[in-house]
């Protein structure tokens, strides 16, 4: 297990470096001047522009810029935004909000996804299986912003069941519906995954062997069908947690939640290249670490992996 972990970590390093380089290049090396973009429609003040370029090392060759950024990133020193705020402070304000939203969405999709997936997998062909399948198809096809608006309009505006937007307090009740919207697509995927895993596992030879041992239907289902079916589901959930942490740009936008997604979107619009790169770097690490945890979980759940 230790060796496996080490190998995964070693594989992670080039990926993190490559991905940060790619994002850095996308933000700073593509045609289009981030400094010019700052001024928006106003005429560019060349002196100020030069000063800003020097402050953010934009006057140096690209690769040097990147290396300097990387060196600073190691000490979590991401510098200041163009507006003069420390980047790390901005991020620190946004992250708790996003974590709260992500954890809520995660619990929602994990619980309902797995439960509905099991129900529909075990009772294939029953009417509620069809209902669950159709609803999950709809959730996958309808974009999040449409689901979000529809909920906001009907539940919030028409029936006043939920707060229309989220205040800066980010209370549980305010966040509940946004979290559901955020988790809905993944929930639908989890339902489908669980269902198909169960129906393929039920046909496995070892399930028949378990029955031949005299085990009751209930324990065969629990120990052999569900246990094995949930391995890929857990993997999916783990990866999704990483993605959820990346902030939900759309959901946060709709419900006016000031989390990472909102911050990222705003800073992209404002051309805050430094802030964007810093956020993406942190998100990348979160994502990659979540994947690493998934790998470990996978190895813990499926003994075959450990020896590969």
């Amino acid at each position, binding site marked *: 297990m230790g060796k496996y972990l080490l190998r995964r970590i070693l594989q992670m390093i080039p990926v993190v470096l490559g991905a940060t380089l790619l994002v850095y290049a996308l933000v700073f090396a593509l045609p289009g001047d981030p400094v010019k973009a700052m001024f928006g429609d106003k005429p560019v003040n060349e002196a100020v522009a030069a000063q800003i370029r020097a402050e953010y090392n934009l006057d140096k060759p690209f690769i040097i810029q990147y290396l300097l950024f990387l060196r600073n990133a190691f000490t979590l020193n991401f510098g200041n935004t163009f507006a003069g705020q420390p980047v790390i402070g901005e991020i620190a304000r946004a992250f708790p909000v996003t974590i709260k939203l992500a954890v809520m969405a995660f619990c929602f999709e994990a619980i309902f996804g797995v439960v509905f997936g099991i129900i529909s997998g075990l009772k294939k062909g029953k009417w509620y299986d069809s209902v669950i399948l159709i609803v999950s198809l709809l959730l996958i096809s309808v974009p999040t912003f449409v689901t979000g608006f529809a909920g906001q309009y009907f539940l919030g*505006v028409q029936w006043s069941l939920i707060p229309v937007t989220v205040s800066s307090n980010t209370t549980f009740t305010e966040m509940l519906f946004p979290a559901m919207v955020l988790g809905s697509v993944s929930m639908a995927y989890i339902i489908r995954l669980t269902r198909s895993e169960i129906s393929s596992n039920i046909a496995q030879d070892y399930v028949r062997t378990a029955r031949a041992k005299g085990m009751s239907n209930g324990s065969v289902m629990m120990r052999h069908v569900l246990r094995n079916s949930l391995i890929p589901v857990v993997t999916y959930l783990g990866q999704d947690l990483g993605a959820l942490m990346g902030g939900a740009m759309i959901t946060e*936008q709709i419900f006016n939640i000031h989390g990472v997604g909102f911050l990222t979107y705003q800073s992209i619009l404002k051309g805050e290249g430094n802030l964007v790169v810093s956020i993406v770097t942190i998100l990348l690490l979160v994502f990659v670490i979540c994947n690493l945890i998934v790998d470990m979980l996978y190895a813990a759940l499926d003994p075959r992996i450990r020896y590969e």
Partner: protein
Amino acid sequence: MTDNNQNLYETLPGQERYVAPIEETPLQAVDKVDDSAPATSMWADAWRTLRKNPLFIISGLLIICVVFVALFPGVLTKQDPNYCNLDNSLSDPAAGHPFGYDMQGCDVFARTVYGTRTSLSVGLLTTIIVVLIGTLIGAVAGFFGGWVDALLSRIIDIFYSIPFLLGAIVVLQMFRTSSSIWKVVLVLALFGWVSTARIARGSVMEAKNLEFNTASTALGSTPIRNLFSHIIPNALAPIIVIGTTSLGSYIVSEATLSFLGVGLPTTTVSWGGDISQAQVNLMTNPMVLFYPSMALAITVLSFIMMGDAVKDALDPKSRTA
């Protein structure tokens, strides 16, 4: 070792010698060819399964409708989607304008109809590029293995670890001024090829290890010939499935980007852009938002349903007799 002293056994009741009447159990030639069913290739077989699948019929009909609307929007509406009159701002439906008007006073029905072409072109073009690039890179990685695979796999990992939407927004932000739909297509393709490449790599690796490749090599075939005449055709099914399904998701992505204001310019008629415009008046005029959303959802749903149906039909399990 057991002794075979069966002869010492008495025959037990019910185990007397029995020979079935030969006329009741006629003998067939050894390994006779069964000519009863018509011969079918994998594709013909898949088609037969598909035809019977209601999911396929419904989604097929929907897709035909969507494609028709995209090709001939003029048949449905005589209105110019770009003709807007502020006098009509947020007016109710009227004759010839079944969906009413949006804030700029444009005809919502006409805009929804004409938006089909944009969404479908983006979805289709992105899918074509993604399938070509993804299959090529995935196939090369899976086929050659070794360091080529290691290198390409790391590159795939890198792209995979960047959140799709985030990456797309960053790049699109740089090209705000361009008004071509190609920028959206290329950006979606840039961050979309990885999932196809992963699948292509896996299925090429699987097909590569099948015995018929060895058989072909021994017949005198070269590795490259094997790749094109055996491996890729056999690895195609999962790629087609993901292609169909992701066509729908690229349409969603385009709408999302347009919704966020970084996708297609407002001058292009698109569902995402219209939804974005309509959200301002959500509280008072929800229907303006409803129609393009509906069109978007139906289109995406039909492609995802089609993907599901194709997946069932091409399931290799159904072909191993």
